[in-house]
């Protein structure tokens, strides 16, 4: 597996404050990589290092196998969390200016821009000033400006904030589309449902240190605890619940159903498998529901942070 971006043992200090402590991440080519962590964990510092807005005190960053240099900024598109546009400038002119700062020629910038404006159906915004646009409209422009120069690496910091659900979906589809065309995406967010939907890989940063990373599926596999949500229909529910309590770790389960069955969450120990449990239960009750509990990204996030 080839990486587009590798950070090795990156540390960064602001005065007395250690913003990043020996952080290493590997971002595979053409993946969507979720950079997660609570506020103030150091995500933005890492992103700024990748964008060469600031520089690490220790460690190094490789882009496509080469040490990160100034020339690479043309291949990175960055949508910061704190974002905005010049309010007094016209939309088209401003987008071309920002694209040219990324190294695009004027004619190329114009061509790309026309494509995106057409795609989003906003051609008539070209000569309007940013201050005349709504927040959601300005965010669309901001997104276009980020991807206009066809960067290899796209970095989105909370990309969906400020969008209504329809436009958030539109942007999500565009991100997936860009990935299909070969782009690698770093995705920094608190919104775990979008992580669940989009990210193949994640890294979790807490208190300036990386505490977890890898493929999301692998992480989930590692975090599942042999626990099952079960629905059981029978006459003497209390008796069965008492029996179960003796053998397993049992808690109440909450899932939707149409009946009034007994709902329990059962955790198995000592190498017991789902089959053993099914065998035990099938003799005692009618099984209406049997699902393994896979931890959500949100669960893993909260659990890992709390343990840290």
């Amino acid at each position, binding site marked *: 597996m080839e990486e587009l971006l590798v950070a090795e043992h990156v540390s960064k200090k*602001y005065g007395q404050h250690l913003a990043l402590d020996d952080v290493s991440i590997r971002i595979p080519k053409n993946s969507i990589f979720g950079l997660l962590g609570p506020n103030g964990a150091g995500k933005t510092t890492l992103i700024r290092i990748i964008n060469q807005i600031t520089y690490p005190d220790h460690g190094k960053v490789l882009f496509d196998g080469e040490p990160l240099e100034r020339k690479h900024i043309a291949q*990175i598109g960055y949508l910061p969390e704190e974002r905005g*546009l010049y309010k007094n400038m016209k939309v088209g002119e401003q987008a071309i200016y920002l694209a040219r700062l990324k190294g695009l020629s004027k004619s190329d910038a114009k061509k790309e821009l026309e494509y995106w404006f057409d795609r989003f159906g906003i051609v008539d915004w070209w000569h309007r000033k940013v201050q005349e646009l709504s927040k959601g409209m300005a965010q669309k422009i901001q997104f276009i400006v980020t991807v206009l120069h066809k960067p290899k690496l796209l970095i989105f910091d909370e990309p969906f904030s400020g969008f209504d659900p329809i436009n958030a979906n539109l942007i999500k589809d565009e991100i997936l589309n860009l990935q299909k065309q070969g782009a690698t995406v770093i995705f920094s967010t608190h919104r775990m449902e979008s992580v669940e939907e989009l990210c193949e890989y994640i890294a979790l940063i807490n208190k300036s240190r990386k505490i977890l990373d890898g493929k999301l599926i692998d992480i989930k596999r590692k975090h599942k605890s042999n626990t099952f949500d079960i629905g059981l229909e029978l006459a003497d529910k209390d008796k069965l619940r008492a029996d179960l309590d003796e053998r397993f770790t049992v808690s109440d389960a909450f899932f939707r159903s149409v009946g009034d069955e007994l709902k329990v969450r059962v955790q198995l120990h000592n190498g017991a498998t789902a089959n053993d449990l099914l065998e035990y239960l099938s003799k005692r009750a009618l099984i209406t529901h049997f699902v393994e509990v896979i931890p959500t990204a949100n669960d893993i996030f909260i659990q890992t942070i709390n343990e840290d």
Partner: protein
Amino acid sequence: MEKLLLIIKREYLAKVRNKSFIVLTILSPLLIVGMIALIVFLTQINNDEKRTVVVLDESEFFTNEFITTPELSFVDFEGIGVESAKDSVAGLGYYGLLHIPGGNSIDEVAEQIRFYSKGSPSFSVLGPLEARIENKVREEKLRNLGVKPESIDDISSSYEISTSSFTGERSLKGVNEIKAAIGGGLGYLIMMFIIIYGAFVMRSVIEEKTSRIIEVIISSVKPFQLMLGKIIGTSLAGITQFIIWILSAGVLLLVVFTMMGVDPQALQAGTPVSSEAMETLEATTASAETVNLYFREFMKIPWITLFVSFILYFTLGYLIYSSIYAAIGAAVDNETDTQQFMFPVIMPLMLAIYVGFFSVFDNPHGPIAVGFSLFPLTSPIVMLMRLPAGVGPDGVPWWQLITSVLILAASFLAVVWLAARIYRVGILMYGKKASYKEIYKWLKYQ
């Protein structure tokens, strides 16, 4: 480099297209010319108003002394009492009544002279009256001492000292003032430019911070490039504005004066200049030799050195101050927070101007002048005030000029470096109230 040009272009256009900038550029010359036209107009009205003073002369000493002039006319009353004279003066709407009672000696009479008017009289009326009376009294006394009337004219000739430099050239009075005015004008220009356009730079930085575009930009260019582009773009816009102002104000003034029928050269004559100044003016214009001398003095001002120095001091001084302004803009979140940092910036500028007007004009090569023309934050202004006196043995020593420029250039590098460090960190700090201590910490960030 290409990106720097892009930034300069954007900053320039953003500034030049700004509505308030356009309005200011167009309106300022109109306002200034309007003001000047108004002043000229009012002066003319004032001059046209002729005041009439009634003279009731009961003595024999002041006959033929009160002759009507363009500003003041006199009417003689005879054979009536003071009280009825006062009534008729008030009734006829004259300005006032000068009552000269009869007496044996001129001293006695002068003692008793009284001027009656409706309100307290204007100095422009009293002055000439006093001058005439004083003149007459002196003349009379001299005659009493036995001086012949022809000799009296001789005595009253005014005297002016002739000055000369040690090398034997005739020097002229007033030349120093003219030179100082040229230097002061250039220094003042630099100060105004710094204050106006430095604040523009600062506001533009704050705008980028508050609109949150800054992080998008500096993911494409280095903060230093952005800062430099901003400073250069804004100053080019400023120079454009200055040139438009000077050209349009010149043209407008010409148009207005032609319309009002004022000969620009007659302007000085039109304003109420004291008669003394008029005399010297006449005296100087009369003497071709003096004109020649003034011209030679004028040519002796080292124009090329002055011009080159002006460009150098202007550029370096403006860059130093505007990068400080940029750093201040980066350190704060909005314009109201800038107050605590503004005073230390404006202070050296003010100091330079004050030191210039109160010390350098008097003694262009004294220790204070030398000190302030070496200190980098004041040298652009103070040195320019000294330079019209020339460079070399009679003027600013070469070593001082060169040292001053070198110190300025070195400080320019140091200040821009420091400002860029503050700027780089500050633009990404939101919601943090910047203190001097905080900014000092930023300087140490990697």
